[in-house]
């Protein structure tokens, strides 16, 4: 390691502090807003730190008393969880066989390219027929319908991740097992899948985060507590008659908590997923 001058070292530390401040300031402020009394948030000059922490908004939003604002919020929390989980499971179930097939049979590469190319499609290009189709099937305002639609986003992405994952598992191992008399299904189940488990986990995490984040389709295809997801609930809260900015911030904190925790705890897996495609070009 080459020696760096003191000035350079000071510069690096200052830059690091600046970067940390840029990243953290908005996030910390979101949390501070959520525990500040309403009066503090409309004070001039603005009060940056609450005199007393007020966690009542969390209680309000998480209450499950029937016919209350909290019940509406928790319902959307449940819907988000249900839709994201179902869509993730379905996307992974489709992606594992497809990813393996493309990895092992290069003749299929073009079909995967086609699937991945659908990423370019803006959701608005599919929204009208999807709306009409869901309406025909009676799946509007329905968590299953929304999960199905989310496959348009999740499936191409997970397949691509799975394919790059399977590419790293030498096919010689599989060939050897099959020569020993194992069927294709056995080989996949006993040998390949366990080896690919980390990639499956990474893909599932990504799929879940993508589904949790989705807003456009949820806005169009859900209308009430039976299917409305968290992102739509927050947009409604921010756009409507909530003069207490702290409440909006609280909803934001609650919605951000699951993905932020996943991001923080699983970052090694996520970063390897993010970069595997990128680094290989």
């Amino acid at each position: 390691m080459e020696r760096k001058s003191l000035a350079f070292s000071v510069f690096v530390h200052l830059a690091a502090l600046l970067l940390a401040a840029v990243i953290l300031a908005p996030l910390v402020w979101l949390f501070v807003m959520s525990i500040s009394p309403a009066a503090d948030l409309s004070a001039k000059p603005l009060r940056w730190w609450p005199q007393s922490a007020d966690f009542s908004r969390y209680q309000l939003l998480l209450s499950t008393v029937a016919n209350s604002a909290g019940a509406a919020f928790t319902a959307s929390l449940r819907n988000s969880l249900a839709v994201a989980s179902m869509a993730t499971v379905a996307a992974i179930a489709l992606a594992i066989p497809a990813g393996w097939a493309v990895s092992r049979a290069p003749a299929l590469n073009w079909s995967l390219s086609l699937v991945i190319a659908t990423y370019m499609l803006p959701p608005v290009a599919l929204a009208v027929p999807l709306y009409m189709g869901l309406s025909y099937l009676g799946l509007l305002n329905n968590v299953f319908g929304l999960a199905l639609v989310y496959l348009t986003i999740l499936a191409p992405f997970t397949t691509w991740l799975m394919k790059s994952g399977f590419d790293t598992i030498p096919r010689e191992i599989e060939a050897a097992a099959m020569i020993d008399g194992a069927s294709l299904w056995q080989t996949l189940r006993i040998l390949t899948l366990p080896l690919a488990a980390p990639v499956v986990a990474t893909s599932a995490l990504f799929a879940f985060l993508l589904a949790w984040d989705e807003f456009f389709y949820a806005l169009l295809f859900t209308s009430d507590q039976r299917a409305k997801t968290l992102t739509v609930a927050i947009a409604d809260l921010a756009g409507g008659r909530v003069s207490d900015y702290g409440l909006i911030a609280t909803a934001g904190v609650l919605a951000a908590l699951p993905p932020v925790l996943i991001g923080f705890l699983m970052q090694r897996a996520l970063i390897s997923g993010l970069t595997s495609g990128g680094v290989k070009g």
Partner: protein
Amino acid sequence: MSNSITRALIGAALLSASFAHHAFAETTLNALFMAQAAYSEADVRAMTDAFTKANPDIKVNLEFVPYEGLHDKTVLAQGSGGGYDVVLFDVIWPAEYASNNVLVDISSRVTDEMKKGVLPGAWTTVQYDGKYYGMPWILDTKYLFYNKEILEKAGITAPPKTWDELAEQAKVIKDKGLLQTPIAWSWAQAEAAICDYTTLVSAYGGEFLKDGKPAFQSDGGLDALNYMVTSYKSGLTNPNSKEFLEEDVRKVFENGEAAFALNWTYMYNLANSGKDSKVTGKVGVVPAPGVAGKSEVSAVNGSMGLGVTSVSKHPDEAWKYIVHMTSQDTQNQYAKLSLPIWASSYEDPAVTQGQEELIGAAKLGLAAMYPRPTTPKYQELSTALQQAIQEALLGQASPEEALQSAAENSGL
């Protein structure tokens, strides 16, 4: 052995079928409301609780969206088999909803008692082509609110009677250094801006449409926009008004940072006695002013109604719920944020007590309510006008040019 299992299964099936039958007897209604102005979410939930208590076989799921989402949500839910049964609709939508078969015609359900008891102005909210598409529920217009303390400090004895007086008084307040920008409006690119504009159009005696063609680009329609632009450029209007909705106006007014504000009924009690307000007891309310020689007062019809959707599978229960929500009893009980549609309520001390000033303003304002244009293409017209208002305020176009291009883009 297998026989007994079969029997047990049949028994279980019958048992569950009887439970299921019981469950089916319960009707679930889905209702769409807005979380903005007028009745609060808590009020609507409480009114609904009273209904379900009286009708234990009916369950009502409530959905609240911002006003901005109300129209699109209603329209989009039409495609879903289990959409809303009851929807809140703005006075401007019956034309479109009737032509697109969103709401059912309930003319035959409206009783003579209702026809006699409800204020005639309220009925215009739900009528199109001579038919009734729901019951009026929120009877509302924009009033001029003022901060008594600030006016007093400025030596102003009476609130303005004309829009010119408003500008003069605001100038006095500004010149005395009491407030930098004394007037707050809701001029964000949204329907709220159209409501403020319509109030001024009514003051200047303008017209939106003449024989189905745009007429707002001249005369009163142009005068109205000119007034807004002048007020904005002179610094009498809070410049942030151009991104305000009603709730932002309320917040600024409640913080004592506006001497005058145009807003709906609901602001009166929230600002004058609400727990977050810093101006409690200092709030004055009068009808929006007029223009010398043209009008005494001005007002926009901002009323809203409750209707039954054409996709509802339970129109009878839905109507029952609407009757409850719009009944005089319910409305008198929750008359703090929205005033009743019933004429006799205004003589009822239980309603008027503690808000005599508001009732006084309402008597004049509600009588002067001016409609926004009735056309199935209202959404497009409104979108074009919102753009025109903002372009004129921001100085991107003169009021004449802006309204001219709005007329061309209105789809009419």
